[in-house]
Every structure is written in C-alpha cells, then in structure tokens.
C-alpha cells in the first residue's frame, strides 16, 4: 500500500490499478484528480479506460475508502 518512494517524495510508478468496487461509494474523488479524464462514474458504476490511463497514481491517493488500489512492482 505504499505508493510513494520514501526519498524526495517521488512516487514509485504503478504497474497496475485495481478497482475494488465493493468498497466504492461513487463519490467522485478519483475523477476529480484524474489528469486524463479516463474514469467513468455513473450512479452505481465505475470503470477506468486503461488505454487512456497513465498510471499516474493520483486516484489511489484521493480515494477515501481504498476502492482504487495501485500496485507497484
């Protein structure tokens, strides 16, 4: 669960992003911080366009409930 490299506050690169929809409250925090607008959020549905996604790691940070989990190598 440590997305951030300890030195210089630089994040380690994510290798993949997992949606745990059972945790999701559909609040929109992830969409708010997504720089490439790749997250689609309907009333009770979330999906990520992994072609557009740059694995920047913003959304696992913003998520209040660990519904988005970034995996590092």
């Amino acid at each position, binding site marked *: 669960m*440590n997305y951030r490299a300890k030195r210089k506050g630089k994040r380690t690169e994510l290798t993949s992003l997992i949606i745990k929809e059972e945790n999701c409250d559909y609040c929109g*925090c992830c969409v708010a911080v997504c720089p490439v607008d790749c997250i689609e959020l309907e*009333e009770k549905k979330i999906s990520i366009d992994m072609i557009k996604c740059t694995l920047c790691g913003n959304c696992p*940070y913003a998520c209040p409930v660990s519904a988005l989990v970034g995996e590092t190598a």
Partner: protein
Amino acid sequence: MINDSYDIIVVGGGPAGTTAARWAALGGASVLLLEKDRELGIPVRCAEAVGWKTLLKYVQPNPQAVTVKLNSVRFIAPDGTEFVFKTDDVGCILNRRIFDHDLGRMAAQAGARIITRAYVNGLVFQSGKIGGVKVSLPDGNKEIKAKIIIAADGVESRVGRWAGIRTHHVPKDLESCYQMTLGGISVNTDYVSCYFGTNVAPGGYAWVFPKDEDTANVGLGISANRSEELKAQDYLERFVEKRFPGASVLACVAGGVPNTKPFKKVHGDGILLAGDAAGQASPLTGGGITNAIAAGKLAGEIACESLKNGSYLEKNLAVYTKKWEDQWGGEHRRLYRIKEVVNKLSDVTLNNAAHILAEIPSEQITLKQVFRTTLARHPKILIDIARCFL
C-alpha cells in the same frame, strides 16, 4: 417528454445547479436540469453545516430543512486543549435532503424542467462550438441541443473538461473525506466541534456537527496527498472508536471537497461552471453550500442576459468569471493562503497556539488580543507561523 432543444441545460442537481436553473428560468429562458442520481440531494455527501446569515442573503430555506442552530465553534488541538470561539454569524445544520428538494421545487416553480436518472456522458459540438449534451436516460441515449450549458456537476466535473477548461485537481488541493452519521450518542447542540492534528486528520480536520441531542454528523477530511498509508475511512474509524465508542452508525458516505485556488476561468464558449465544479467551495473550511448558491444565481442570471443579447461566446460570458472574481476572488485567495499555512503547522505549534487561545476568555478573542498575548508569552510561535509563509 423531453424536448430536443432548450436555451439552457444545467448539468447537476445540487445547490448550484438548482439555483442556476431557477434564476435562468425566472429570466425567461427554457431550462432543462439533468441529474444523474435518482433523487436530488441523495446521497447526502455533505456535513450539512452552513452560515445562517450568509445563506439568508441568497435563499429563504424551508424551516423543515433547518435542524439545529448553533452559536459557537469548539476547536480541539492535538493534545486535547479546547477553546470555544463565538461567531457573530449563527450557524445551522441543514437537512440536505429537504433543503435540496426545496431548491429543486423552487426551480421547477420558476419554470425549469428537472429530470433525474439522466447521466450526461459527453458534449455535442457543432462546427467547433458547444451545441448540446449527450445524455444517457433509462430508455436510451439522446442528444439534446442547448445554447448554453451550465456545468454544476460537482467536484468530479467532467463537463468543464470536455469544453477544454482545466478543472481537475492536484491531490494536494483535494480533501478526501469520509463521514458517518452516528446515533445513540450524546452531543451538545450549541456548538460544532473541530478536531485537529496529524493523527486525527492530516492536512484537514475532523468535525462533529450535531443534528440532534443524540445524533451527529461525524466526519473528517484529509489532504489527498497525505493518504499513502491510511485512507480517510481508516482515520475516521479510529476517531469514532476513540471518541464515540459503541455508537450506532446510521449512514456512511465518502466525498471529495475542492480546496483550490480560484480557477483562471470558469467559462468557455457556451458554457459556465458553478459550485464545486468550479472549485468555489471555501478552501479553508470546505464549506460550499452558500458559495454554490451564490455562484449558481450569478451563472443563471448571466446565462439569461447573454441569451437576450443573442451572443454567448467565450468573450460574452467572460463577465461571469470577472464578476465572481470581483465579489469572492480576493476572499477565496486569502482563505487558500491561510489553509496552506494551517496545513504546514506542526502539532506542537497547534498545541501551543491552543494554549494561548484557551487563556483568553472567549468574548475577548480578537486578532489584536491574540497577537498581544502570543507576543508576551510565546513569541516563538510567531516565528513558527512566519516560517510557514516562506
């Protein structure tokens, strides 16, 4: 039956959207409001506290929507030191479900058409200009034409982005929040409580907003870039375990609050942004209800005026950004600077500051008095605070 074309389409049925729809309709435009959820005001992603006097400037709320009136704010420092701050603007706790329904009712009375379960998933462009929205309805997809779009689709605003306005947030400027409505507890309905500290809510604060003598909204927000180990939910579970052991949880909700500098522009060709979509919530407290209503009213009025003039290009709508900037921009920037400083203060500095404030009787708390006491007893704090400005 929905028409194929409207003067104004409002996306989002929160306070900003319904108010914008109301004022646009009052100005004589044909207005359609699209809300993605089943019901306006639900789920309540809100701690429901609002300044009473400021709210009354813009709207007369339904008396049933006001649950509790408060007269002071209690701050609790990381080491437990408390001080009470009496405000001249009495606060109140709303019932957002009733409040939002009421705003929707007012918009409908004014002549706006409101549709729920309408998820807007794109904009329609006609020769490079916005000409309407693509909407997914329970009975299929549809394109609806409009001359002006008012995007009030909340912190996750995508409508603005599709129109080429930069509306996404850096994690530092987004509060990641989680709230539980607790029952079977005992709370004082005279004041709201705000808890500070890196162990409680790093880069934010935890709140206890009473809804009744035995019910309260208990939640917290943390700065989104400070949640590598624990999430807002984890912090809140810890907080509730410590302060309200054995409480019943009536509702849980997650949410995001923008804590940003004002956006450079909140308008575009045929589009206006209002409320959280435009990052207009207070960067210090995270409160956004009145801000959204004020901006919604302004957006509705300006959209209507531009329609009458027959011109709604970027240069015609620029007056919206300018008016917002003139009225609230300065204050917003000031609150943002204060937020940046408060977030940098260490727990030790917060404790020391609280000790000073606790020494001053609450009636005498003025900036001058605080400064004088600090200078006399703990001059080091001033240096600590000054350092945060660098």
